[in-house]
C-alpha cells in the first residue's frame, strides 16, 4: 500500500533524473579536472590561508601583545571568532542528526556539505582557544592527563574546561557521523575509479564497503545511533560555550538566558552559513535539481524561527537589565555601554543584521528568492559575528570599576588571524568539493521518485505502450 500526501512536492525536480545521472553529476568534480573557477577560488583561498598562518605564527612567536587586547579586555576578537565558528558548526549536525531523527528526508540533499562545513568550522573554532593562550606550548594542560608535576589536576569548575570536553566530543562525534555517511559514497567512487592511485585511496577510505543489504542495514542502524548521540551534543556544545560567559560575573555576561539564546543563535548562524555555501555550490556544480528552492525555503524557515528566538533573547536581556535595577548591567545594556555609547555602532549593526534583515524572510517571495537569500545569509553571518563581539567586547569594556573602562582596538594581527581562518576554512571546503562526494548521493537516491512520478504523470496510453500487460492503477 503506497500512500502519498498529495500536497507534498517532490524533493528532486526534473523528469529526466535517473540514478546514474545523480551519480554522474555528484561525482563529476571528482572524476574530472578541476574547473577554472575552482582553481581561481583555491588560489585566493590559499593566499588568504597563508596570510592567516603567518599571522598565527607571528602571534605565537612574539606574544599575545600583537593583538589589540589590554588589561581590561582579556578577550576580544579571539573568542568572538571562536564562538562565531562554533556557532557556524552547528547547522551540520543539526541537519544530519536532528532531522534524521525527525525523518526529514529533505535533509539528504544538504547534510553532507553542511556536515563538512561543521567539521571545518569546528576546526577553525578550535584554533582560537589554542592560539589565544599565552603559552600555547602548555595547552595540553587543559586535559586531565596524568602527569609528573605532582598532584596537578585540571579545575573542573572552569567553564573553559567544560569547553574542552564539549568541543572535542562534538568534533569527534560529528566527524565519525560524517565519515560513516561517506563510506558508501566512497565505495561508489572506488568502483568507478579508473586510475590506480585514486582507486587505492578511495578503496582505503571506503573500508571495504560491499553495498550488500546487511551492510546497508547496519549503516542505517549506526546512523540512527549516532544521530541519537549527536542530537544532545547540538544543544550541549553551545550551551557550554555560553557558560563561558553566563557563569562569570561580568555584567552583561552573567545571564541565565545565555544557553538557549546561544544555541538558537548558533543554529541561526549555522543555517545562514549553509545557505551561503549551498547557494554557491548548487550553482557551480549544477545540482539545482537536488538542492531545490524548497530546501532553501525550508532552511529559511529554520532561520526565521531561530532568528525569532534570538530576537526575543535580545529583548529579554534589555528587559532584565532594566527590571533588575542592577546598575552595572543596566549601564551595559541600556546606556552608553551598548545602545548609545562607543559601541553603539556594533550594537545597531547587530540589530540590523540579526533582527531587521531576517524579518524580511517572513515574506515568501523573499525566502524563495535565491539572490535575496544569499544576501540575507551573508548579512546574518556578519550580524552573528557582531553579536559575539558585542557580548564580549562591550561588556568587558564597561564592567564594575569605571576606572578600568577601556576600548578595544584591533591590530593587523587580529585581522590577519580572523581573515586567515576564513581562508583556511575555504581551502578545506574547496578540497572537499573537489575530492569528496559533495552530496550523500547514495542516500539521495532513496528519495528519487523519478519512476513513480513519471508513471504517475503518464497518460494511460503512454503507460499501455510501455507496459502492455499491466493496468495503471492510480487508486
Amino acid at each position: 500500500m503506497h500512500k502519498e500526501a498529495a500536497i507534498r512536492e517532490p524533493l528532486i525536480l526534473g523528469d529526466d533524473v535517473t540514478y546514474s545521472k545523480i551519480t554522474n553529476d555528484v561525482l563529476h568534480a571528482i572524476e574530472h579536472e578541476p574547473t577554472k573557477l575552482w582553481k581561481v577560488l583555491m588560489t585566493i583561498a590559499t593566499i588568504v590561508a597563508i596570510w592567516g598562518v603567518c599571522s598565527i605564527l607571528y602571534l605565537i612567536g612574539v606574544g599575545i601583545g600583537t593583538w589589540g587586547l589590554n588589561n581590561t579586555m582579556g578577550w576580544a576578537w579571539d573568542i568572538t571568532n571562536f564562538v562565531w565558528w562554533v556557532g557556524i558548526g552547528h547547522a551540520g549536525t543539526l541537519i544530519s542528526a536532528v532531522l534524521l531523527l525527525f525523518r526529514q528526508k529533505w535533509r539528504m540533499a544538504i547534510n553532507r556539505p553542511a556536515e563538512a562545513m561543521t567539521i571545518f568550522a569546528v576546526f577553525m573554532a578550535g584554533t582560537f582557544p589554542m592560539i589565544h593562550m599565552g603559552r600555547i606550548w602548555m595547552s595540553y594542560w587543559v586535559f586531565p592527563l596524568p602527569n609528573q608535576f605532582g598532584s596537578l589536576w585540571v579545575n573542573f569548575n572552569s567553564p573553559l574546561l567544560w569547553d574542552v570536553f564539549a568541543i572535542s566530543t562534538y568534533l569527534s562525534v560529528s566527524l565519525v557521523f560524517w565519515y560513516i555517511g561517506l563510506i558508501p559514497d566512497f565505495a561508489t567512487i572506488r568502483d568507478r575509479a579508473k586510475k590506480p592511485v585514486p582507486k587505492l585511496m578511495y578503496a582505503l577510505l571506503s573500508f571495504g564497503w560491499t553495498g550488500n543489504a546487511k551492510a546497508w542495514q547496519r549503516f542505517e542502524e549506526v546512523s540512527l545511533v549516532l544521530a541519537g548521540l549527536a542530537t544532545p551534543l547540538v544543544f550541549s556544545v553551545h550551551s557550554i560555550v555560553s557558560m563561558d560567559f553566563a557563569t562569570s560575573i561580568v555584567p552583561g555576561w552573567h545571564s541565565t538566558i545565555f544557553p538557549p539564546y546561544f544555541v538558537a543563535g548558533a543554529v541561526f548562524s549555522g543555517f545562514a552559513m549553509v545557505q551561503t555555501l549551498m547557494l554557491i555550490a548548487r550553482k557551480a556544480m549544477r545540482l539545482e535539481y537536488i538542492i531545490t528552492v524548497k530546501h532553501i525555503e525550508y532552511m529559511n524557515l529554520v532561520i526565521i524561527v531561530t532568528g525569532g528566538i534570538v530576537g526575543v533573547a535580545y529583548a529579554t536581556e534589555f528587559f532584565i537589565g532594566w527590571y533588575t535595577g542592577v546598575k552595572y548591567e543596566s549601564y551595559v545594556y541600556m546606556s552608553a555601554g551598548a545602545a548609545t555609547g562607543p559601541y553603539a555602532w556594533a550594537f545597531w549593526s547587530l540589530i540590523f543584521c540579526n533582527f531587521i534583515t531576517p524579518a524580511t524572510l517572513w515574506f515568501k517571495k523573499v525566502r524563495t528568492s535565491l539572490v535575496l537569500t544569499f544576501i540575507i545569509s551573508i548579512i546574518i553571518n556578519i550580524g552573528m559575528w557582531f553579536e559575539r563581539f558585542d557580548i564580549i567586547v562591550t561588556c568587558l569594556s564597561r564592567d564594575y570599576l569605571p576606572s578600568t573602562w577601556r576600548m578595544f582596538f584591533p591590530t593587523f594581527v587580529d585581522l590577519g588571524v580572523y581573515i586567515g581562518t576564513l581562508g583556511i576554512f575555504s581551502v578545506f571546503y574547496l578540497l572537499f568539493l573537489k575530492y569528496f562526494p559533495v552530496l550523500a548521493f547514495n542516500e539521495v537516491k532513496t528519495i528519487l521518485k523519478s519512476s513513480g512520478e513519471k508513471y504517475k504523470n503518464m497518460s494511460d496510453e503512454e503507460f499501455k505502450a510501455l507496459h502492455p500487460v499491466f493496468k495503471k492503477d492510480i487508486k
Partner: protein
Amino acid sequence: MANSKKYWKGLEQLNEAPQFLEASKNEFPEEIPVDEFLGDKNSLESSSTTRRDFLKYLGFGVAAASLASCESPVTKAIPYLNKPEEITPGKANYYASTYFDGNDYAPILVKTREGRPIHIVGNTQSSLTKGAVNARVNSSVLSLYDGNRLKEPMINAVASDWATIDAAIIKDLQNSTNIKILSSTIISPSFTTIISEFIGKKELDEKGNIRGYNASNWVRYDAISYSGIIEANVESFGQNLCIPTYNFKKAKTIVSVGADFMGNWLDALMYVNDYAQTRKPENDWMSKHFQFEANMSLSGSNADVRTPVKPSEYGAIVAGIYKAIGGNINAPKTAYDNQIKKVAKALLATKGESIVICGSNDKNVQVLVNAINNLLGNYGNTISFDKSSNTKLGLDSRVAELVADMNAGKVDAILIYGIDPVFTMGDEFKAALGKVKTTISFASKMNDTAAACKYVCPTHHQLESWSDANPVTGYYSLGQPTISPLFNTRQAEESILVWAGNKTTYYDYIKQFWEKFIFPQQSASLFFTDFWNKSLESGVVEIPLNPIISVENFVFNGDVAKAVSAIAAIKGGELEIELTQNIAIGDGVGADNPWLQELPDPITKITWDNYVTMNPSEMEAKGYNTHFGQEEAMNVVNVTVNGKTVNNLPVIAQPGQAKGTIGLALGYGKKVGNIAELVGKNAYPLVASTKDGISYYGAATLTNVETTEPYHIACTQVQHTIMGREAIVRETTIDVYKEGNKEEFNPTPVIEVSEGGKLVEKELKAFNLWGDQPVENIGHRWGMSIDLNTCTGCSACVTSCIAENNIAVIGKDEVRRARTMHWMRIDRYYASTYQNVGDIEGTLEKTKEATGKGTTFSYQEMESPADNPMVIHQPMMCQHCNHAGCETVCPVAATTHSNEGLNMMAYNRCIGTRYCANNCAYKVRRFNWYNYTAYKLFTDFNPSQDDLGRMVLNPDVVVRTRGVMEKCSLCVQRIQAGKLEAKKAGSKVVDGSIQTACSSSCPTNAITFGDLNDTKSSVRLNMENDRAFRVIEEKGQEPNIYYQTKVRNLTTEEA
C-alpha cells in the same frame, strides 16, 4: 710577505734529536685501522649494517641532538669562598641611610640582598618624616643601576682617570683667582665644612699642594626657588632666618594658597604624616583643609574645600584673608569673597592652631602670609623658627649675581654640584658658562650642564656614599654606603678634599666631624665609637636645641602696606600658565628613571609625558578633544610665555583647573639623558626670571599646531567618575559621620527579595552559593585595610610595589594600550554633578531634571566630572577575595586560594587564557603580553633587559615570563619570611611585624596589613570599624581588603 718564521716545540725539534723524531712518528700510539674497515670493498659490502640499523642510529642521532638542544640554560650560583660575616644568602640586610637630592629629604632604610640594595623604605625612627618617603625616594634605588651613569671622570668629554683629572684640575684651579661653587642646597654639615674650608684657605702647604683659594664663593641654587619665602621671613622678623618648620599635627585649619604641601612644596615629606593624623574622623577633631589653586595638585585633590583661582590672584587672596581676619589693609577685590569669609571664620575659630601657606615665590605675598600667621598666633605653635629647615637655601638674587659675574668674565672657575642649571636656566646659563675657563661638574650622570663642562668628576650614587644631613636645626642623620661603587666614580666631598690638599678620606672626615661637633652635644653615649655605631644603626640623631630666637625678640616687622600695594599692582593675564612639578618627576630628578616615568600622575593618571592641563569646558569652547582613550588624538599647542615658546605640547582636560589658566609640569625634556631626552618638553624656559626673583606663572598664549601624526597620550585611567556606583567608593560628610549611624554613611549591602508578597531585605550571606572558606577564624587570614581619609594618592606605594615585585616597565606605547603591569594602582575618581545619587531611578530623574530632556537611558551626564570636582583616591590591588571570581574559571587551577586567605598565582601552571582577568571585578590582574625581559620593543627602558638593571631585581620574587598572568600577591614572600621569623622565635606572628611593600612605604600609614583572624591586630580593628567597607561587596566575593569610608570635613549643605 709570507710568514717564514718557524717555531720549534723545543730544542729537541731544532736539533732533530733522534728520540724526538722517533717520538713524533709515534704521536698516535696506535695506527688507526682505517684501511681495515674501509679499504676492503668486499668486507664493507658484506658488513651487516642493515636498513634497520641505519634507521636506529639515525633515529638515535636525531633524538640525541634534539634532546641536547632542548636543555635549559644552567644558571650557576657560586657560593662564597669566604662568607662575609653580615651576609647570609637569602636573607636581607637593612641599613639606615639618608636620602637628599637637593629637594626631598628622607631618612631611609635600605634593604640589601647579597650586597645589592634593592628596596628603600622610610626610617620610622625619624621624628621629622616619621618614615615618609615618596615615589622619587623609593625609586632612587633604580638610578643606582642605571647603565647610563658616568663610569669614568671625563676631561672635555673624553674619559680619563682620577690622577690625571686631579692634576689637571688642581693646576687649573691654581691659575684661577675667582672660583665659584654653584650647588643645590647642601644639608650635609660635613660637606658644608669641606666647602667652606675649600673656599676659605688660600696658601699652599709646605709640600706645594693646594690648600684652598682666595675670594672663592659659594652660591646655592634650588631648581624650584623658595627665595621669596626666605626673603619675606628675613624682612618680617628682621633676623637671618630661612624656612620655618610647620607642625601640621596641631593645625586644625589649613589654608594653602597654591602650595602643594603634600606633593612638592618645601619639605612635603615632613608634613604628610602629620597632616594625615589630623584627617581621621575618629579623633576629637579633624582638620579642615582649604586650598586655593590654579592647577589641580595633590593637596588640592585632598582638600575639603578647593577653590580654583588664577595664580595671579594668589596675592589678592592672601591679602583678602588677612583683611578678613582683622588685618588693617585695603585688600584688592577678588571674586572669592564668600570663600575667603569661610576661611577667615575657620581661622579665627582656631587661632594658634592653624597654618596658612602660599606657594607663591613673591616676597610681598609671603610677607602677608607671615602677617596672617602672626596675627593668628601660629608662630611658636604650629610654625616654628626654633627648628628651622635647611633644605632650601637658594636665593634668586645671588644666582642672578653669579650669572652676571660669569657673563662679565669675572669667574675663572666654577664647580657645579647637584644641579643641572643649563637645563633649568637654559641657554642663558650655558652662554655664561661658556665664559668660564674652568668648569667642573660633579654630575653622576651626563646631563645638560655636565655636557657643557670641561671636567666631569662623577660623584657616587647616594647608595654608594657616606653622607650626613642636618635638615632641621638639631636634627641629624647619617647616610652609609650600601654597595661598593659600581663605577670609577668618586664622591664630590672626597674630590674637593683632594683638591683642597686634604689627605683624609671623606669617611674619616665625617667621623671626625661628628666626633667634634655632634658627639659633644649628646649625653646618651660615653664614647664616640658607641655613639657613632648607634647613630649609624638608627640613622638619625635628634638633639633638642634651645630656641634660637626668644619669644620676646620675635616681633613681626613686615611692611604690610608696601606688600599690599605691590600685590595690588600684579596684573593677571587672560590666560595664565602655572608651572608645576609633578609627583613622579619633580624638578627633573626623576626624568631618567623608568619607574618614575611610568608612574601615573596621581591626578591626571598620565605617564611618560608632560602636557598642558586645561579646564574641559574651556577646551570644548576651543574645540579641543577632552577624551583620554588609547587612540584619541590630542590637540597639540605651542605655549608662549614672555616671548619664549615651548612647542608641541598636548592639551588634556583637567577638571578643576581654574578657568583662564593652564598648567604645565617642569622637569621633562632633558636634552641629555637616557630615556629623559625622549620624554616630554622642557618647560623651564617659560619660568619668568625678573629682578624680583623667579615666578612660576605668567600670561600665556596658545597656538594650535596641526599635526600629521596623531598625538597620543598614555593614560592609565580614561573614565573619571564613579557613575553613581557607591559600592566602589564610599564617602560621607563629617556631620553624618558624627551622628554615628553606620547605616547612614556606610550601609551594609543587602538584597531585596520577595517573600510572601512582601519585599524583605536579606544579608548577602543568605544568597551564598559557596561554602565559607575554611580560613575564617582558623590560622592566619591575611588582609589589608586602606583608609581613604588618609590616603593622599601620593603613589609611593606603587613604586614600592614595583621595586619589591620586579614589575616590568613597558613604555609609553604599551601603557597607552592599557597594559600597565603595575600590581597596584591608585584609582582616582572625580565627582560628577550626579555623584551622590543612590538608585538608578533617582539617577535618571536627576539627569532628566538637569538636562531638561527625556534622556531616559542616558548616563552621559554622570560620565563627565563636575567643573570643580571633589576627588577621591582609591588604591586598588588584588582584593584576595575569599570567593574569588578568578579562581573558579581557571581551567588549569593556576590561581587558587591559600588556607591563609591569599589568592595565589602559580605562574608555572598558568597557560594564559586570561579568563581570570575577565572575571575579576576589580581588573587587577596583569598579563605578560610580551616577553618584557627580552623583546626588542622594551630594550630602551625596561631595566630588566641589561645586566646592571637586573641587579635591582628582588631575588625573592620570580620574574614572570611571557604569556602568564600575574597580580598582587600581598607580598607573599614577606609573609613567608615573617612567619619563619616568628617560628624561629617560637612565638606567634606579632601584629605589624609583617609589612607589605605598599604598607611599609605609605607615608601616612593609610595602608594597614595584618592578620584578620588576630582579634587584636590593627587590621582587624579597622575591619570592624564603622567606616569599613569592601569594594562592590554586594557581589559576594568576600574580599580580604577593607577600605575605610572617606569622611570629608564638610557639612551636608556644603557638600
